[in-house]
Structures are given as C-alpha cells and as structure tokens.
C-alpha cells in the first residue's frame, strides 16, 4: 500500500534528517525510531516535494496495527494543516490511514516525510481513490 521510500536529498532544503525508513523485517511498510518522534509528513503535488495545491488532507487516523476491530490511537496526529501533519507515537506498530480532499484536476497525490530529503511514504491515485494508508513500526 505504501509508496516505498525514495530518499533523495533536496539541494537547499532544510537540513532536518529523514528518520523513516523501509521496515527491515518486511512485515510493515516503514519503521522509525521512537527517539526520532515526532515525525512530520507532508502532502505534495509532485516528485519534487512541492506542497499540494490540488489536494489536501481531509483526515489522518492512526490505528494500532493488527487489531480487529481496529483500535484508534487518540490524539493523533498531534497537529494537522491542509498539507502537513505531525505524528508522535510510542513504540509499537501502527496503520496510518489518510483521506484527501481533491480538486477535479488532481492526478496523483504524494505523501512524503517532511524532512531534508524526499522520502516518499505513499502515492494516492486521486481520480479513482481518495484514501491510502501505510504501516509504521516504531522501534
């Protein structure tokens, strides 16, 4: 479901380190160290990391992974704007569900880690789908 991390540094971008990486075990999409919390994510218009203009976050919900029925994590994200959000999670594994508002001309929306590089977490094919999710293990 997740986009698979593509980490490229952006010349001139803020030097904040990227902390989310693909999960080594393969059980989850990504992993991040609890000491690197909070992690920030951003919604982008294209591969270059340009903030989204044809889509915006509608909701972001975090659930404890592998729970049935899904157990929602309260208070997450800790902050959210139209194109950015911040997650502050304890050790554990989580599903991050994202729903977007989109304009008719939106073609693809990209969710990246908001850091000094381009760390892609999710792609959403917006004309045919407005939701997406990725799983995240906090170690």
């Amino acid at each position, binding site marked *: *479901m997740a*986009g*698979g991390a593509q980490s490229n540094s952006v010349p001139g971008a803020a030097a904040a380190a990227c902390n989310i990486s693909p999960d080594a075990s393969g059980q989850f999409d990504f992993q991040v160290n609890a000491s690197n919390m909070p992690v920030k994510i951003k919604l982008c218009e*294209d*591969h270059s990391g340009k903030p989204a203009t*044809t*889509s*915006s976050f*509608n*909701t972001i*919900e975090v659930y404890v992974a592998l729970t049935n029925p*899904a157990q929602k994590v309260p208070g997450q994200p800790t902050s959210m704007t*139209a194109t950015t959000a911040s997650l502050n999670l304890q050790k554990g594994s989580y599903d991050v*569900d994202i*729903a977007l*508002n*989109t*304009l*008719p001309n939106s*073609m*693809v929306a990209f969710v990246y880690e908001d850091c000094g590089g381009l760390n892609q977490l999710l*792609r959403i*094919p917006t*004309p*045919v*789908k*407005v*939701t*997406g*999710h990725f799983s995240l293990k906090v170690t």
Partner: protein
Amino acid sequence: MIMRGCRSIIQLTGPTLLGLIFALTGAANSQEAPPACGYFMQEIAKNNLKLSDLSNVTISVACFWEISLQSQPQLLQSRLRAEAAVQKGTATTQTGAPTGANGTTSAVSKGNTPLASLASEYGGVTSSTSNQTMTIQATLDGIPSALGGKGFLPYCRNAFLTIPGCVSASTLRRLNRFGLGVTANTSSPSQNISGSASTPQGTSQQASLKSAGSTAPSLSSAFGKFTIWPGEYKLPKTGPPPDKVIDAERELDSALAAAQSTGATVGLPPETLQRYKDWQARCIENNPSLTPTALSDKKRYGELVAKYYSQVVRVLFYNSTPDCSPSATPLKAEDATVPTTLTPWQQSIVKAAEDYMASMSRFGAQLDQMLRSAATPVLSFEYDINTPTNQPTTSTYKLVGNKAFGSKICTKNAKTKKGSDSSTVAVNRFTETINIAGNLYNSAPTNVPGAGTFRDLQAGTETDIAFCTSTARVIGSFLGNSTLGLTYYYQDQKSPSILKVTPGMPLPGINITGLASTTSTVFATKGPINFVQLKYGLGTGKNVKFPIAVSWSNRTDLITHSLWSAQFGVSYDFSSLLNSSSSTDTSSGK
C-alpha cells in the same frame, strides 16, 4: 439488367468489403481498456505511479471493478442505497429577492444562487412602499447533486470512473450555471375584489363580490441567472466525512489478505494467496512486457489489461493459475467477469470492492457539491421579470461581477456543542459585487408623456466585510460568521414610474386624491435615484441568515424627496437538506 448491375458492384467492391470486414474484425478484437485501468497505465508510464500500485487490487480497485463487476451495476446501486443517510451541509449565497422586487433587502444582486433556498424579507429598495416577500430559488444541479450525494444515484466524478447510469460531474457543472427563482408578494392582496352593495337593511348591507383583474398567482418577480465566468474551485478546509471510504478500504485490505483460519469467510485461502502473489509478481511487477513505452501507448492499453491485469479475476474467482507469458491469450470481457456463484471469502472481495466504489461515488458527489457551492461566479448574467402590483411589468437585464479578496479569516474551526468541528470556516475578509443593468417596460407605455420602453439604467456596488463571529464564545456557534455590507446604488430613470389605476379601486398603500374618474394611468416625476445602504448580515456560512439594513435614498420610484427606510429578513438555505455531508465554505458571501 438491374441484377447484372448489382453483381458488378459486388464484384468491384468485393476486395474492399473483405478489407473492411477484416479491419472491423481487428477492431473488435482490440479490446478497449476500462478508463481507470488506462489511467493507471498512463501514470505509471509517467513514473507518477508504480507497477506495484496496479498489482495491488486495494489501490487499483477502480480498474478491478470496471473489469470484473461493472457489468453488474445493480450491485453497486444496492450498495449506494444502503449508504444513503441524512447528514448536514451548508452554503453561503444570496437567498433573497432580486433588486427590482418589492420587499427585497438587497440593492445589489449576487452572482450565485444556493442549491435551494427560501427567504422572507421586508423592505424594498427603490419601491415607495415597503412589502413582505417570499423568495424561493435553486440551481438546476440541486436535485441530481443531492441524489448523488445521498447515494440514490451513482456519481462519476471524472472520465476515469464510469459507473453505468451515473450522473457525471461535467453535467452537474453545466447545470450549476443556471439558477432560477420566484418572489411572491405576501403582504399585498393577491387579488382585487370588486362588487356592488344591495339596499341597506338597518345598519347592515349585503354586497355581491367577485374577483377583479387577473386571477393568476401574485408573483412580484421571477428571475434566472446564468454564470458566464464560473468561480475557481477551492479546496475546502473540512471536506465530507470519509469514514465510509476508509472503512471500505480496510474491508478490501482484509478481503485480500491471508485468511486468519481455515474456512474463514474473509481473507484469501493459502493457495489462492500464493497465486495472487504470483500474479502480482509475474504478470504485473516484473513483467518485461509492461515497459513505459508500452504503457504510454494508448492503443495497447486494452490488450495489456486483457492479457495481464484481467487474470487477477481468474486467480481470485476461478482458481486459475496466471499465464503471464507474452503469448498469453487476452481474456474476453465475459471471461474476466466475476461469476454468480461465490464462496464466502470471494463474496467478501466483491462486497468490499462494491462498498469502496459506492462510498467513493458518494464522497465524490458530496465533495464536488461543496466545491460548486463555494465557487462564487466571477461574472453572471441575470434576467428578472418584475410584475409589481398595480404597475406595468418590466424586464431587467443585468450583469453581475463578484470578487472575493483580502486575507482569509476564521481559519480556526469553531467547535459545536458536541465538540466536533463546525463546518463553515475560512472566508475572505472582503467581497466586492458590482451590478450594471437595464430595465425595460415589457410593453411601451402609450399614454404617458415622455415615456418609452427603456425605463431605467441601474448600477450598484456592494462591499462586504466579513467578521469571524462564529468563534465567539457561547453564541458564536449559533450565529455563525457575520457580514457588514456597504452598498451604493444608482438608478437613472429614463421613463417615469407608472401606476395602473382601476376606477373605484384603491391602490394598496397609496392614496391619491383628485383623480378623475376616467384616469387609468398615473405617472410620477422621473429622476435619478441615489441609494445608500448599510447592512449587517448574521449567519454567514450558516443555513439560517438574518439580514438587517438601514438605508437612505434621495427619492424612490414614486416619491421625489429623500427618505430613510429599514429592511430585514430571514432566509433558509436548503442545501443542508439536499447535501448529505458536513461542508466547509471557502468563499465569502452573505
């Protein structure tokens, strides 16, 4: 002779016909890709999406649905009906009568019209007598838009989603350009009555009465609006609730994941899961035939889908092993359709896919309805036909310009009593509206000196300043935001105002002495009207609005001296009844 001629034509055209038949057969064999599948291929070729997005049916669910389930639209429609529910929405636009109507509180018309609204107003701008009016208006997309938003009609948000029998976004955008409304005069008598009295019996006297004049409904005006230059769509701060879409996606994920136990009703059995993963890897993700060049060739979409993607239907529903070789036979449409007899876990896949498409349809309809409501037209044309009581009917042709500007205010969500976010936030600080209009008598007055068909020229401007009162404690959530509007309106009368008089019948609210018994027409002194109004509108962005105004004018249509007057009203925006989502307004208005 004729037969011979026919034979020679057949002989001459035989090779051509054979070629044509061959070409047609070839065309028939080259299957057309479902639009959603074509979209994926196009975006993969551009490197915006990856082959792993196509191979994941949870992501490419629309493509999967178009291949396997589109031929059974009744399934989706039943899912849509199951989702139909009443929720809340809103819009902010002019809901009252047009300028020319007696009783209006607005000197300047707004370009847009709400989905559907009802307004009761007391006042009048250029009329000499104050009246009570009731205005009902709607845009033509109101009903189909509401049906789509509630799930009674499938909705196709774009060309990539093709649900049979759906109402399309482009159709609703066109219909949204048209608005219609009528204003009824509710304070004047709807019909005149005349009669004659019999001989007095003491202090009482019997009278024989009958209707006088027209018995048609008393409408003071009817109007139509056409948006010439639509406003820009802006993303709402708070969109429709996506819960159903998220639930459907989770449902689909579970249906395509490994079954938790043998005989589970949800999830793929181990052997099917293995074949599904095999299909993902060999047919899609590592398929050497799916090169960017091949994927960017629109003529090959159909073949590639039929050859490789469609096999997922055989894998999931026919226990087939995928054939991903370049020599694989493209599946015919009927072979890639979900069978009618299914195991419980297969039913869960079908249900999840249908649920996703149904919830997407409804979410898309609600979101687009919000986008259309919030897009204030930049330039509109309005036609009003005015039928004031005891006056000749007139037609007004009006151009309406509108521009919102300034910083966004009310960017923080107001909290409702339940603690959830209120829907209407983020409006522009200022909105400027300009009107230019010409008003014509529908029939040229023949017996009034100096009168012609052209009655008057009108121009008006209104500056609205929005205030974020919705976040005020205690009463904020009830009142919503408010607007202070300053209006200047000018009317250059080219022909005098005319009153139609019926001998022996008093004019409502007007008392003229010294009229000759033969007089049928009274006309006033013509002259320019300058009108200034200060209006405070409570409830910007709320369904119920209360405009209160005080105004001054140098004269009115009949009276030639200056006067102060007051206007007030209440209006209800029915959009909330038609829309099934909680909405956010990104425009300003009142």
